[in-house]
């Protein structure tokens, strides 16, 4: 068995944000579950704050460790071009997850294939869901980490879709690390924009703050709130109606499939025909009951 343990392939996973983010926690669980199922040695790394540069530096370090394979997000195709080429030259296979280079295969960065969702589509879907229940007088979308490419893409999907429907949508850029401050700012915004009756929170931290603020202002009815990703709090909010729904990427799959596909590639050279899409997936009152237990168990 010691020989088998030595055989365990080392697989790195690298993401462009802090793994202490709730989103990545679920992803990590997918990684771990698959790693123990398939006998891989997992090394999951993330930056301390959202940082493409920090991620590339981690990627370079991972290359130096000469692992069997790397699973990475590609938040910026240009920044990853050179490192990915080096990985290719070194014969280290790379699977992209979560965000990627969207160019056609011939032009894009050299990696095997992509497992993930599409942030922009997710934003659009959030807007469509809101539009399916009402036509907002004015809308807004809250990015808690301005400049974070994935979040910006979600916001853009929402804003574009709202604009198509002829609805003005503001973008808020308050940070949510200090929820009290964020709450005060959101209240200020809602005071100065009394017509806003649809709000898109691009992740769990702003969703949590928005739920509390709307509740305190007594505007839970008036302002339709929709969000991204899933936490227990969001599930409960969907159940009690204060949250219309949430878009998720099923990021557990990104982690689990990342390891699984990497193992399959390493053992047998399998490569799927195209991208494996794990999202976007809408969770609303209709299906929330089915995901609730999953959320509590850390799968969503």
């Amino acid at each position, binding site marked *: 068995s010691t020989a088998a343990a030595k055989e365990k392939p080392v697989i790195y996973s690298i993401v462009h944000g*802090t*793994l*202490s*983010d*709730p989103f*990545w*926690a*679920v992803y*990590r*669980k997918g990684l771990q579950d698959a790693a123990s199922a398939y006998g891989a040695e997992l090394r999951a790394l993330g930056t*301390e*704050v959202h940082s493409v540069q920090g991620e590339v530096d981690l990627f370079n370090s991972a290359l130096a460790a000469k692992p069997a394979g790397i699973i990475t997000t590609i938040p910026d195709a240009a920044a990853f071009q050179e490192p990915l080429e080096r990985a290719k030259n070194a014969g280290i296979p790379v699977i992209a997850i979560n965000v990627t280079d969207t160019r056609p295969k011939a032009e894009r960065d050299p990696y095997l294939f992509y497992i993930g969702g599409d942030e922009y589509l997710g934003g659009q879907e959030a807007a469509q869901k809101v539009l399916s229940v009402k036509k907002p007088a004015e809308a807004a979308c809250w990015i808690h980490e*301005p400049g974070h490419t994935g979040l910006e893409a979600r916001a853009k999907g929402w804003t574009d879709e709202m604009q198509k429907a002829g609805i003005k949508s*503001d*973008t*808020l*850029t*308050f*940070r949510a*690390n*200090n*929820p*009290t*401050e964020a*709450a*005060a*700012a*959101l*209240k*200020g*915004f809602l*005071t*100065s*924009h009394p017509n806003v009756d649809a709000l898109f929170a691009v992740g*769990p*931290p702003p969703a*949590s*703050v928005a*739920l*509390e603020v709307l509740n*305190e*202002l007594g505007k839970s009815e008036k302002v339709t709130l929709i969000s991204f990703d899933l*936490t*227990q*709090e969001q599930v*409960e909010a969907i159940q009690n109606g204060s949250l219309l729904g949430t878009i998720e990427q099923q990021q557990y799959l990104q982690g689990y499939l990342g390891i699984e596909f990497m193992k399959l590639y390493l053992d047998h050279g399998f490569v799927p025909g195209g991208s494996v899409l794990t999202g976007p997936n809408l969770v609303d009152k209709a299906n929330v009951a089915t995901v609730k237990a999953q959320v509590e168990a*850390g799968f969503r």
Partner: protein
Amino acid sequence: MTVIRLVLARLETGALLSALAVASIFALWTSNFLSLESITSVLIVTSESAILAIAVTLLMIAGEFDLSVGSVLGLSSVVVPLMMVNYQVPPLAAVMIAFAIAVGIGLLHGTIVRGLRIPSFIVTLGGLLFWRGIVFVITQGFPVRVPRGSGSLFDFFSYRFPNGFDVSLLWLIAWAPVFYVLLTQTGFGNWIYASGANERAARAMGVPVDRVRTILFVFTSVSACLAGLIQVGRFGSVDATRGQGLELEVIAASVIGGTSLSGGVGSIGGTILGCLIIGMIRNGLAIAGISSYWYTAIIGLLIVAAVLVNKATERFRKVAV
């Protein structure tokens, strides 16, 4: 005349003028800034950050920094609900344990700074990373649901009255005078000023500088814990990033309130006003409808402008502590 002179002479006066200037700008700019809703939300923000910033101010007066407060706040915010949910620890016990941990962390920081003579900046930068890492280890990154059923306990930290005010304001009203008296009316307060203004002379005069600073490290950790608990009660869940970036903001509030980065100068009132100024700027801009990409830039401008008002009136203030 003498009264005016005396008022103008106080360190807090500059911060007060800055605060008034900021308030006037927003009151003129937007009609809603003086609404009850807006005032209460500014006060809630101010109370929370001031509870923390006051302790940080004392430490800065004594000539040291604590960069770890954000992480310690995160740790205590996470530990309490986690203990209650996962280990069925009774709420009160969980809170006591959190405070005990905070005391331990403060003692640890103080002891390393003092015993190993490593600059507090490095020790607490290490703390910033280490305690954040610990939060991550114990939560595995998952947000922790706050058991609201136990509302009764968290109400103690952050109950919201029907008129919109929050218990946190009462905490500040209770907390600030204690530190004010400590700083201005006790020998320990003397020692705080002396340690920061001239460490060598303070030692020569018999001030136990190391002990003073260690106690203040405990104060900052305990204040971070309290501020964390106040926040926990208000929002339904805590994630592992809670409190990130807070260290710079509380130092900024202190400095806006007149605290010197090189030690020896500062006041409780000034710091509270500094927190108020930051709170008003954030809230006022949002009310004024500046919420988008300009938001960050304009906060930067207004912070400098606020301190400018303070400086412009400084020459009237020339009385020693």
